[in-house]
């Protein structure tokens, strides 16, 4: 029982990271109708930025954190202008392929610069964790869960309560109509990419002390996050969060009770099961093209 509780905590912690990246996926998908296959690399790039500022340059952790996030915002701008924007009038296939190309470019550029050895990044807190009854609560996991809860609340407030959030929603639902109402669609898409890059970057920085900082971390996280969005229901914000948490828990239990080397395979099996039996996911999906 103690082990179960401990695994549950760890699972939710790692699931929160998947949820954050999945959220980034969903936001870009809703704004552009395109899945960004380089979403995981956003996390990877941010983690390496942290390594540059905090480890290599030795700047204070909080300062490195802020600069890394600012860097991610800039990165979102560059990504949009370089990869998505020139292809915005084409079908989804070229855009997908371009984002895959971007993902390969990013991870291997970092590999060329930093080499294949994983880097180590300190956690935010000096205390490693606290013992609460039978369960040991790792401080970094606590931080991840806390930040995720805050971000979900912020997300809700931002999209439902602010004018900018509503403009973004309007753009994702009907670009033509939104532009006729005086909303600058390209600005809205730009904001989405920035927000999504910061979100993905935040997830990467938070998870870096738990995993290692490596070039593979991006694709691993992206794969799980994508599986999470399908499990939750494609394009659904709540679905991304629930799916991410569920996947983290499933994977942690799978690794503990079934097999460690195949840990990364469980996400795929769950994904296939959902595709076959419930492709619309837990929360359903809007389907069908209009004839």
């Amino acid at each position: 029982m103690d082990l179960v509780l401990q695994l549950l905590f760890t699972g939710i912690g790692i699931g929160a990271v998947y949820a954050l990246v999945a959220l980034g996926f969903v936001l870009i998908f809703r704004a552009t109708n395109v899945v960004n296959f380089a979403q995981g690399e956003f996390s990877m790039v941010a983690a390496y930025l942290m390594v540059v500022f905090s480890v290599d340059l030795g700047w204070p952790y909080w300062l490195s954190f802020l600069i890394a996030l600012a860097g991610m915002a800039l990165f979102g701008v560059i990504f949009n202008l370089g990869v998505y924007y020139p292809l915005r009038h084409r079908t989804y296939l070229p855009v997908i392929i371009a984002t895959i190309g971007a993902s390969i470019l990013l991870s291997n550029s970092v590999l060329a610069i930093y080499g294949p050895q994983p880097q180590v990044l300190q956690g935010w807190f000096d205390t490693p964790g606290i013992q609460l009854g039978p369960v040991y609560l790792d401080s970094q996991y606590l931080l991840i869960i806390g930040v995720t809860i805050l971000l979900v609340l912020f997300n809700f407030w931002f999209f439902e309560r602010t004018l900018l959030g509503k403009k973004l929603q309007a753009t994702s639902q009907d670009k033509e109509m939104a532009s006729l109402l005086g909303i600058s669609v390209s600005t809205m898409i730009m904001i989405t990419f920035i927000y999504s890059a910061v979100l993905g970057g935040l997830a990467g920085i938070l998870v870096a002390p738990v995993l290692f900082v490596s070039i593979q971390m991006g694709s691993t996280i992206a794969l799980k996050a994508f599986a999470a969005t399908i499990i939750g229901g494609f394009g659904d914000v709540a679905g991304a969060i629930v799916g991410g948490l569920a996947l983290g828990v499933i994977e942690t239990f799978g690794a503990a009770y079934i097999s460690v080397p195949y840990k990364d395979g469980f996400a795929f099996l769950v994904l296939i099961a959902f595709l076959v039996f419930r492709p619309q996911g837990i929360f359903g999906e809007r389907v069908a093209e209009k004839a």
Partner: protein
Amino acid sequence: MSASDNMIPAPAVRSKPLIIRHLPYFIGAAALVALAAGMQFDGYILNILLQATTFSIAVFGLSVVLGLCGQINLAQAAFFGFGAYAVGLGTADLHLNFWLCLVGGCAITLVAGAVLGMSTLRLGGHYLAMVTISFQQIVTLVMINAIWLTHGPDGVANIRRPELFQSSQSYLAFCVAMLAIVGYLVWHLPDTKLGRAMRAVRDNELAAGVNGIDVFRTKVSAFGLCALLGGLAGGLFAGGFAYVSPDQFSFAESIQFLTMSLLGGVASPIGSVIGTGLLILIPEWLRFLKSVPGLYLAIYGLSVILIIRFMPDGIWGFVSDAFTRWRAHTNAPPVAGALLLRPATTGGDIVLEVTGLSKHFGGLKAVDGVDIAVKRGSVHALIGPNGSGKTTTLNVLSGLYKATAGKIVLDGTDITSMAPHQRTAAGLGRTFQNIRLFRSMTALENVEIGAERPGNTMIGKGDDALTERAMEALTFVGLGNRANELISSFSYGHQRLIEIARALASNPTLLLLDEPAAGLNSTEKLELHELLKRIAAQGLTILIIDHDMTLVSEAAQHITVLNFGRRIADGESMAVLRHPDVVSAYLGSE
């Protein structure tokens, strides 16, 4: 069907048998094989050639799935690995015959590809991309961790070749021969029934469905075929290099295959060979770049972005596109006879009987308990103000939406729960309000896909009969002399006519026309009216939706009026148009 390229048929040389028209290809291929067998290469060159040959076959697979069918596969290296490990483990560990292992490996990859495709291809392309990436990762995990089976990271050594091709030189010649054969089949594929179906699915899935193509099966076939070619290539690769290990079949390799395909041109096997050759040779020339890990893949990633943006058709696409456009205007299409329409007459006096048809979207009752009876040989109009449920009705009739309740009987056959392509096979033809043609094809090819409807009794055997039927239909709508032009060069009104020709070529029992006059100018409307008269004169039953009251009242003998999803009037045209409910629905009541 056609001769020397995959876009434009060349009817002038059609009469010669296929084997003679393609003789130059086989002579060239034989010369290459002889060259590979006869030239003395040193080991280094031999290895590069062997790699280029086997990789090209794997990239052919991508040209089928991505180029022809418009579906993505990011796990081609995994399928390549399946074939390689089948030959590797089979010949080295189990001491089985090489050919048996090669065939077995191909069978395994075909099944794996088809099953993977079946799990995902009903959903959108994003799912396919991510699922194939996941699959690729899993295969790599298994190759590394299932040591009892795969020897893990150590890989498989001492892989044997067939008795017949023991020397590297003769094995290379054998691989070149395989490349030539597979290349021929892939090159010819777009002009077969399956290939046309794939192109139709790529261009417009909805239209493919209502023209009698089983979209899902076509996609699964393309995906299975791609995997099969990957497996074959992998098997040949394993025999060639005698050693395989998991890192040769990783995600990075899948990306390399994709880059090769995109660079050369995804639509053609020639492009595949160009792309593969370049991406194998360039890294050999620039070996010093290999010392930095990741640099090559980073360059590939950047190339993918740049190619997609600036050269979406690849090197070969760029070359052949100019050639194709030039050819289109030099080819005179063949002269065609008169189009004959012989609608099937198995049922009774009523061709289409719709009873209690409903379609609800959540709480919205878009169509609510509608009855329609279309008499054989008549022109029947379905009218109603905007939002009255006309197009929804048509979409339920053609199977794009599932009916919430009710029954649809076409010529004695209950089609209520059939898929769109099955309804088409049962005798339904339709056009779309917002034109849905296959944009990368010529007018003739579009109409051929219509003529190819399963159950079309008006075409004989063979491709010539198909072309003839399509030409007749195009000539019938007045566009026979422009048959070999691409869709993009036709005006909006002409595109509408091509859509009608596509439906007519299939010799339907019932023709559904969705607002055919929308967007036409007054001359075009008159022409359309004439066309409808000529169609009706051959006894084809038509159900037409339109706003144009002049057209409807003159063309249709019978009118059904919908409003708010319900039928508010039904009967002979003039009586219906004077009906007070109809007048108030259109003009408002006092």
